[in-house]
């Protein structure tokens, strides 16, 4: 059994994930994860959650204001820049909080952290990980982090929403890197929640925290200017990527459940297990289903939109405190509804 925690992107809405985890850890002190997959704000949280520093995570997600993350500018000054906002304050926070000491602790403790990014030059999703022997997937690239600077820059890149925040040259100071000047941005461009990474790396029990709401909010307003339309477009785009991210793992799991049910039926009809496995193993044909068991997917998601501005970049401590409460509420509902037999982490 390998348990993964997957946290999606969503800027300040990460406070909702803080609420979920706070409640879960309070209810199940023995709950721990073997791997942590983070996209954007999830990438900021993953290392600290892996180190058990929930107090610090909560402090970060209840005290920060927008100006502690990004700086607004005169738009005319940014025409020849790589972003609308300047993400320097976020970098300052990353340098202060994701220290060499913490990075060394993550590595020493064998915590497997997967940080999703998107490379602008290749258009590919690139996952940076502390896992020394990660899976080698076909549809995205995976790189093992070699030092603390690369670790910090991978976190920064994962959190940098393109156009809003600057792209990051993660491998600029990585010795021997073939493309040190490649620029990386938020992994959410390609994958909003990295559930697939957890599956590819052997997770069988996955806790996924999504920060966009499950329900569609119908708004009775007219969008009258460029900026509000841009803001709404980003929200729709994020929601769409998020839904697609969920559909694929769910279908994958349904296929695994179906294969498992067929195998059980064959066994009950007297076919030997070894023969069944032979039937499902085709030489020369690699399938993602081979030797995989059905997954346990636990999904946490807000019922209604959490707010937080475009891309979750409006950091308001009061609003974030409310997001934490909402997260705690959703986790409470999960605790009340789960079968005790399914609780493998108590």
């Amino acid at each position, binding site marked *: 059994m390998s348990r993964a925690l997957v946290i999606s992107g969503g800027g300040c809405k990460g406070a909702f994930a803080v609420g979920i985890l706070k409640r879960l850890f309070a209810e199940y002190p023995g709950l721990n994860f073997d791997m942590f997959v983070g996209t954007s704000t999830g990438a900021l949280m993953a290392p600290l959650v892996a180190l058990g520093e929930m107090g610090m995570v909560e402090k970060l997600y209840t005290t920060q204001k*927008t*100006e502690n993350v990004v700086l*607004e*500018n*005169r*738009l*005319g*000054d*940014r*025409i020849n*820049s790589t972003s*609308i*906002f*300047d*993400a*320097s304050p976020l*970098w300052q926070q990353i340098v202060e909080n994701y220290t060499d000491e913490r990075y060394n602790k993550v590595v020493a403790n064998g915590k497997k952290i997967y940080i999703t990014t998107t490379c602008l030059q290749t258009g590919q999703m690139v996952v940076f990980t502390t896992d020394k022997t990660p899976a080698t997937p076909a549809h995205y690239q995976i790189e093992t982090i070699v030092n603390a600077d690369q670790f910090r*820059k991978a976190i*920064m890149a994962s959190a940098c929403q393109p156009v809003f925040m*600057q792209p*990051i*040259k993660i491998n*600029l100071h990585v010795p021997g890197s073939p493309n040190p000047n490649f620029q990386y941005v938020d992994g959410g461009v390609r994958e909003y929640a990295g559930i697939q990474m957890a599956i590819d790396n052997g997770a069988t029990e996955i806790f996924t925290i999504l920060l966009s709401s499950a329900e569609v909010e119908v708004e009775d307003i007219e969008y009258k200017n460029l*900026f509000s339309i841009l*803001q709404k477009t980003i929200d729709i785009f994020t929601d769409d990527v998020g839904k697609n991210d969920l559909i694929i793992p769910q279908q994958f799991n349904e296929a695994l459940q179906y294969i498992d049910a067929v195998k059980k039926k064959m066994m009950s009809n007297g076919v030997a297990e070894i023969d069944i496995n032979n039937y499902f193993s085709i030489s020369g044909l690699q399938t993602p289903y081979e030797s995989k068991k059905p997954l346990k997917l636990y999904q946490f998601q807000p019922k209604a939109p959490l707010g937080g*501005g*475009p891309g979750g*970049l*409006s950091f308001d401590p009061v609003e974030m405190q409310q997001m934490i409460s909402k997260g705690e509420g959703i986790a409470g509902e999960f605790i009340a509804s789960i079968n005790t037999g399914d609780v493998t982490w108590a």
Partner: protein
Amino acid sequence: MKVITHTLLLCLVCIQLKAQNKRDTEFPKEFIMHVKLHNGLVTNFSNLPELYTGGLQFVPQYTIVPQKIRAGVITDFYYTNKKISAAFGPTFSYKIKTFKAAPFGSLGNINLNVDHLWGTNREKLIGGGINADIANKIVIGLSFHRDYNLNTWWVQNSIGIRISSVKKTIEIFNQ
């Protein structure tokens, strides 16, 4: 005199404290320089014919109260009454409105300016105007000055561009 100086300093401190709005991106602490083309008329509102005036101004300024006040000097070369002349003097700009492009930043501002110019032909102009600063690139303005030495009024419009470079953001994370 001492009382006036202290009162002015107190006012400046009060404005400075009130102006500490980190989210307002207009009038940041910086050096800025505009070149303006201006033209208009010189009149004393009598039956005498009005004189055309037009010229080129160089206006370097520095923000002394972030988000509120810039101070600088005007160097003006202008043509009027069949002569090319020059004028020089201090100028202050006070921002009255920021055009927000919430939540992304701002698109420009409206500011008022007051200035005093001494001309090479004994002109002593005092007055000011209103300016629209668009995207920190182009400035369009309207100004009124009283020449209290030669007893005339100067009414002008102007269009200018920023010629000082914009401070580049240093991306320490990409260095």
